[in-house]
Structures are given as structure tokens and as C-alpha cells.
């Protein structure tokens, strides 16, 4: 199925590519422009959702992305709805704090979304992350789909990676990549050693599962 769709695309592109260059330009540009992570490549110029319950490794994944972007000399922004960001553990994970703009929204999700939209529209940030991981689900469910569309549109054709960290998937069709995390096991050896986590990545209806360990 995948092979035949690729073949079809190739045929259409070869037939019409010279006449309608712009149609195929976005796809070409997006390819190769990704941010490396523990669960694979995170696309730039698109919305990625990271979902999971407490201690599922979602924040570790977010910090690793912040570390990857900031260590590559990019500026990042973290819109922290519930003021949950811990600079000490972020610095230990390799995040360059001086290159991360931290906006504490004091429990106001609307402020977090508005600020994310403004920063994404302004451009120049390598990564913009919205952390609504501790926001009650009933509040997050009330975010209209149009808000996610607006955010997706703000980063389209840019090099900004837009991440939303929540307890569940909310943006649905607006997000290019959905990463659902679940904790398999907690490792103790007298101390907390780390987590074994499973990541279920969904992209273009293709699901990939992979396990990884986050250890101290």
C-alpha cells in the first residue's frame, strides 16, 4: 500500500512537477529538517504532540529535545502552563538554560497558547514547547480545534519545532507526529535508577512502537 502510494506520488510529481512546482516544494523542504530525539526524528515546521501520564517519561523527552535544540545554538521557548519546569533537572539533562525562554502562565492555558502563537509568528525560535502536562483534562478538552490549527499554521514552512506536552492527544489531525508514552517499569536499586518507557509514535496513520530507558 505504502509502496504503491509512493509510486503514485512519484508519477504525479514527474508529470506535473515542472508545471506546479510550489505544490511539491513544501514536502521537499520539510524532508531532512528534523530534530533528533530518543524516539526518532521530530519534524520541524509542524506540530508534535507528546502525551502520557505522570512518570511516563514525557518531560524527559521534552528536556532532551530542548537540550538538542539549545545545544545546537538554537533559541527555544517553553510555555509552562502550570509552572512545572525544573531548571535544575533541565540543566542536568543538558539544556542550555540561557537559550530557553521560560514563560510561566500560572495555570492559564489560554495565556500559554496565545504566547506560543505570538512566539511562533515572530519566528527565529528553533523549538517552541507548550507544557500542559499538569493541566486538568477537562480544561484542556475545552481548547477549540481552531487554536491547534492556528498554531500548526504559525509554524508551517518555518524551521520551528512546535511541541505540545499533555496527558492525552488533543490536537488530532493538526499534529504531524503523535508520541504516546507509557511507563513499563521503574527500576530501583536502593535508589531510583530510571524508567523503562514505551513510545507509540503515530505519523501519517503509520504507528511505530519503540522502547527506551531513561536512567540516571
Amino acid at each position: 500500500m505504502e509502496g504503491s502510494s509512493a509510486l503514485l506520488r512519484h508519477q504525479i510529481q514527474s508529470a506535473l512537477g515542472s508545471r506546479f512546482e510550489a505544490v511539491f516544494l513544501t514536502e521537499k523542504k520539510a524532508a531532512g529538517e528534523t530534530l533528533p530525539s530518543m524516539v526518532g526524528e521530530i519534524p520541524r515546521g509542524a506540530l508534535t504532540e507528546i502525551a502520557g501520564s505522570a512518570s511516563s517519561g514525557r518531560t524527559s523527552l521534552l528536556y532532551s529535545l530542548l537540550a538538542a535544540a539549545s545545544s545546537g545554538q538554537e533559541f527555544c521557548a517553553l510555555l509552562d502552563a502550570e509552572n512545572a519546569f525544573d531548571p535544575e533537572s533541565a540543566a542536568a539533562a543538558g539544556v542550555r538554560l540561557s537559550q530557553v525562554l521560560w514563560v510561566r502562565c500560572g495555570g492559564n492555558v489560554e495565556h500559554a497558547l496565545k504566547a506560543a502563537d505570538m512566539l511562533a509568528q515572530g519566528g527565529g525560535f528553533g523549538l517552541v514547547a507548550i507544557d500542559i502536562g499538569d493541566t486538568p483534562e477537562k480544561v484542556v478538552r475545552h481548547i477549540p480545534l481552531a487554536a491547534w490549527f492556528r498554531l500548526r499554521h504559525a509554524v508551517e514552512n518555518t524551521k520551528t519545532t512546535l511541541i505540545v506536552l499533555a496527558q492525552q492527544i488533543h490536537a488530532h489531525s493538526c499534529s504531524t507526529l503523535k508520541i504516546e508514552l507509557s511507563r513499563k517499569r521503574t527500576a530501583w536499586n536502593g535508589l531510583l535508577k530510571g524508567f523503562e518507557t514505551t513510545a507509540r509514535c503515530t505519523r501519517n496513520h503509520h504507528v511505530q512502537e519503540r522502547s527506551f530507558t531513561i536512567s540516571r
Partner: protein
Amino acid sequence: MFACLYAPGNSCLLVECAGYFSPLIEETSLDTVVFDIQGLRGIYGPPEQIAMEIQRRVGVAANLAIASNPDAAVHAAQGIRGVTILPPGHEAAVLAVLPSYLLGGSPEFARTLDLWGIRTFGEFAALPPLGVAARLGEEGAHMQQLARGAGHRQLRLRVDPLVFREHKELEDSVDLLEPLLFLLSSMLNELCERLRFYGRFTHEIRLRLELERASPHSVTIRLPVPMLDSKVLLKLLQLELNDKPPKAPIEKIELELISVEPRITQHGLFLPSSPEPEKLEITLARIRGMVGSANIGTAELLNTHRPDAFRLRPLALAKGSATSFHPKPAFRRFRPPCPAQVWCTDQGKPARIFSAKGGGSILAYAGPWRTSGDWWTGTVWNHQEWDVEVQSMGVSRIYQDCLQSQWYIDGNYD
């Protein structure tokens, strides 16, 4: 032609007086000012008339000398009381009576003249030039030129400190933001034009509004990078005034832009792009208006063992060098820490927990770790920390505040 005013202890007055006659002013010393009066002949007439005008303008007892070169004017003003006019070609004759110490020069030069028994300009000027040059070198030859009133040099012009300030007194008080912004816009345009003329940018905006029957309202905006876009500056002022509006109608506006050197940056071709400073500053001002200025910035860890110790600093658009990173278990804080009830075993180990975040039996734990500090201040802390795993909460860090004997959940490992 140059005029020199000499009045000990009145330097400001002298500069002000000189500024009335000429833009080309040299502050030779604290009590001496020389200025160019070349163009005044057409206005006032001969040097005697110019001298009278200057005397009338200065208003205090001051020596005034007019000569064809600045040094002759300075020496005459410093050595001869009242008004002295040195006709071109006759400087040496007028200066001849002046004491030689007025020439200045190095201590060796002054000592040599003293040893030779030279006491006046005239005596020094009468010495053979070749002999003076052979014995006193270049300095001696130059000083002899000065003693003859034949110095040639340009004025070392006084540079006024650049002040970019505008003020407007309003006939009718303004109590709405829109007309105020209209006035601010024209003032900013004017100031930015002046800054552009001098090749300067600004890094600070100071606005002072005098209010009707209320204390003045001041706004200071410090910019992270020097800027010169009046629209950006106006937008920043608008956002600041929206956030903190004046409490009464405005009677007078004072606006000042602090000038700095322009920002010259060369971006690397292969470096990732960064936000445009002007655009970013407006965005940050908007976000500040929403979340408050204390809630936006970059975190900086403090050098202390106190839990959750950091401060927020403004975002600086300076890139550091690339570093390596390692995936590690992250921590999510509950701010403020969530109070909890914890039941312990006979050995003092946590067994069950109940809180607003969830609760249940503790499946695994590690600890305790005791931390305390700041006992010498009012913010003392004394904690006993545990890492615990609970089915419904995940893995959390809990602690007992030993001072209050109260348990809290600090946050989650995530």
C-alpha cells in the same frame, strides 16, 4: 581670530557665554575658554566692538584677549588684566611682559629657563632659535614660537554630551491613551531622526508624565539591544502604558532616549537563525502584559543547596557554544508543593500517601535524604526527602518539613 576668556571659578559661565558667540569652543582649562570669532566681524564690526559685546555678555569680571591664534589669546588672557587685543604681527610685543611660567611645558623646561635667568616671554623670545633648538630640543623650539605669539594650531573643540530629550507642555490635559500616543509618536520620530543624524541608536527609553494633581508617572524601558525604529519604540511604550496607565490626566510629557553606539553584528552563514531583536522585544512586551514581568525570562540557577533555587533573567540573544546532552529522568515541580498525609511504618518508612494529586500504597521507595540550610536567615529549611512510587501518581519526590512536621509532594519524576 580667536577670543579667550579667563575667569577663575566660572567655567560654566564662560562656556555659556562663548556658546552665544560661536559653536567652535575649546575648554583650554577649568578657567579658560577659547572660541573662534572669525565670522563676527560682519555682525559686530572691528575686534574692539566684538570685545565690548563679549564683555557685556559675560557679566562677571573676566580677562578677555583677542588674537590671531588661540595660544596667543590664551596667554594674553591669563597674564593681562581686562581686555587685550593683539593686532596681527604685534603679538610678540604685547606678550613680551608676561612671566615665563605661563608658557607651561615640562618641569625640566621650566627649570632650565629658571637656571638661565629667563623670567619673561620677551627674554625667551629674544634668544637665538637655533641655539634654543640645540639645547632644549623640539619642545624648546615650540615654546619659543608660543612666546613670540606665533603658535599655529587648531582648536580642540568641546563636544557637548549628546542628549536626546523632548518635552511638550499641553494646553489641555490628555486623559486618553490614543491622543497621548499620537503626541509620543511625533516626539519619537523627531528623536529618532536626531539619533540617526548622529549615527547613534538607543538602548533605553525614559518617559516622564506630569499629571494633574498627582505625582509624576515615570516609565523606563531598557532594550536588550540598541534600536532605532520609532515604530518599535512607540509600540513598546504603548504596551507599557496599557499595562500601567497614568492615574490622572497628563499636563506635560518628557521623553528621553539614551544614546549608544549602533549594533553591528555579523551573523554566521551556517548558524541557526535567532529571533529578530525588535520583533522579539515587542512580542515579549505583549507576553509580559499577559503573564506579568516576573514570569518571563531565562532561568539561572543560584549557587545554593536550597531546593528550587533559581532566578529569572531577561533573554539575551547571545549564542553560547554547542554542548553535549544526555537523556536523564526529568523532574516536574509542584509549585507550591502539594500538602500530603503520609502514614509510616514502625521503622519510619513511608507506607501510604494521600493528597490532592492522588494517593495509595507506596510500592517502592528510596531515602531518606536530609537537607537543611539558611538557619542564619529567616528562610530556614529542614527537609527529609524520599523518592516513592505510587500506582496512581507515578514516581514522586516527597519530603517532610521537619520544622512544621508536615509532609509535601515536591513533584514527579517524569
